[in-house]
């Protein structure tokens, strides 16, 4: 008996352990769940199961989204939100990356900084909103501060852990080749941990969106969250849903951007071209 690839000799079933799925099927299945979701939603609205005032149909939401951008200057709200995210996240990274790497590399730095960092991790950032509002009023500062507090301590810890996991043998190899501490830090530890730093940044940027919306909903007149709170006052559920959709799409875009950056910055990790 001869077995050719694609022959029917081998069993093919829908649900199989340890068997990867082809790219076309991944795409089809991934799109279908959204089609089903929006389909049920649309049907629910059209058939009158739900109050269209509280739940507008997906088509209405898309139309509203278009109007928001085209006629009601929503783009500037989106721009402000993105600027807040990027600004505070950049500051958090500038502190967290060097500090996390130093804490993961040198026990003395860890012993000094970690008791502080760990404690802050257990304080939910929104707990600081009242005091931030008292200190900074309703300007940009309290929003940036909330975002900063929400991500920095987790970012430091993630980077510290990844750095501590850089393989001992790599560092010891460099030591027996005559490397001094700063050489080893820059030529072994940093390049070894950089891919994981990027992954940690990607994870924490997703969290940053959460704090952004909280900040904008509670105390802001600009940004995506503020637009949604304004809409609530006038029962514009379609505006609110368009805002949610925008946040979702932006989150996805940033995620895609980070994946792309990972591939561009670390091509040597790609085993595909064997």
């Amino acid at each position, binding site marked *: 008996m001869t077995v050719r690839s694609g022959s029917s000799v081998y069993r093919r079933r829908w649900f199989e352990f340890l068997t990867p799925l082809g790219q076309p099927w991944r795409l089809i299945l991934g799109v279908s769940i959204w089609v089903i979701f929006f389909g049920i939603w649309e049907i629910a609205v059209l058939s009158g199961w739900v109050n269209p005032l509280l739940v507008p149909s997906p088509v209405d939401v898309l139309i509203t989204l278009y109007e928001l951008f085209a006629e009601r200057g929503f783009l500037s709200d989106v721009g402000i939100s993105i600027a807040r995210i990027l600004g505070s996240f950049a500051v958090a990274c500038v502190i967290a990356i060097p500090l996390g790497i130093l804490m993961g590399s040198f026990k003395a730095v860890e012993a000094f900084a970690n008791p502080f960092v760990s404690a802050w991790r257990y304080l939910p950032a929104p707990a600081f909103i009242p005091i931030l509002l008292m200190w900074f009023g309703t300007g940009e500062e309290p929003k940036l501060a909330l975002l900063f507090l929400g991500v920095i301590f987790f970012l430091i810890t993630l980077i510290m852990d990844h750095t501590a996991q850089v*393989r001992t*043998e*790599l560092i*010891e*190899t*460099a*030591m*027996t*080749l*005559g*490397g*001094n501490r700063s*050489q080893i830090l820059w*030529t*072994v530890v940093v*390049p*070894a941990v950089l891919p994981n730093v990027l992954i940690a940044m990607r994870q924490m940027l997703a969290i940053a969106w959460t704090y952004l919306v909280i900040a904008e909903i509670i105390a802001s007149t600009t940004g995506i969250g503020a637009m949604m709170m304004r809409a609530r006052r006038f029962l514009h559920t379609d505006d609110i849903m368009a805002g949610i959709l925008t946040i979702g799409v932006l989150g996805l875009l940033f995620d895609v951007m980070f994946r792309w950056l990972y591939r561009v910055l*670390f091509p*040597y*990790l*790609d*085993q595909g*071209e*064997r």
Partner: protein
Amino acid sequence: MTSATTTAGVSAKLHLQDVSKTFRVRHGDDIEAIKAVSFETPENEVCVLLGPSGCGKSTVLRMVAGLEEPTSGELMLDGHPIAGADRERGMVFQAYTSFDWLTVQANVEYGMRLNAVPKKERRERAAHFIELVGLTKFSQSYPKQLSGGMKQRVAIARTLANDPTILLMDEPFGALDAQTRWHMQELMMSIVEAANTTVLMVTHDIEEAIFLGDRIEFMSRHPGTVHEEIIPDFKRGKRITTKEDLIGLDGYGDLERHILKLMREQGGDDTDH
């Protein structure tokens, strides 16, 4: 103190005198890994540390590398006490240590870059050692694209290109399949002859020890110490380049049997851990 001498009167490159190492463990009893280890390695010889698992071979090697501080005793290289890691004692590990973010060539140049060797000389030396380990075709590849044996050859070339006084290797071929290991041993043999290096290596492969070793320090457990120094003098004056050359020699079988017997005595009851 000046350079020590062996009984044969040859100047010893490496000299260990009553070296002991006790690991302090936070919970539980201290572990006396090594007790009163003494041996010498003459210049340009390959010295093999052989013995059952857990007898402290890696610990001895790491102390020579300067990665572990002895509890007591004296370690000397060229008459100078060993204090910390240094380029004069380059080490090849059992686990792969290629830097994934550097090409093969950049990996081999790495040590020289740390030591500020001029670019031109770096290039030339790297090319020479990459050729020596047979990876010229792969000099622009990244380690992820190489097999295990090739990665280990990169590590050897990287260490040799850095021009160490003594080459340290901890079971460098332990993770390789039998055939690759065999190729690597023959490659090592030719490199050692061509480059005239002093080597201290750890293995628990008896054949490898006899094939590569000019002297074998057989270590025992409980305590971890040198039990017997074996000099495979049946090889003396013979030119051995392949495993077949070795196995065909008179005296090989006897020595292998002798070491097997030692192994059985020492490693029979594997009761710890």
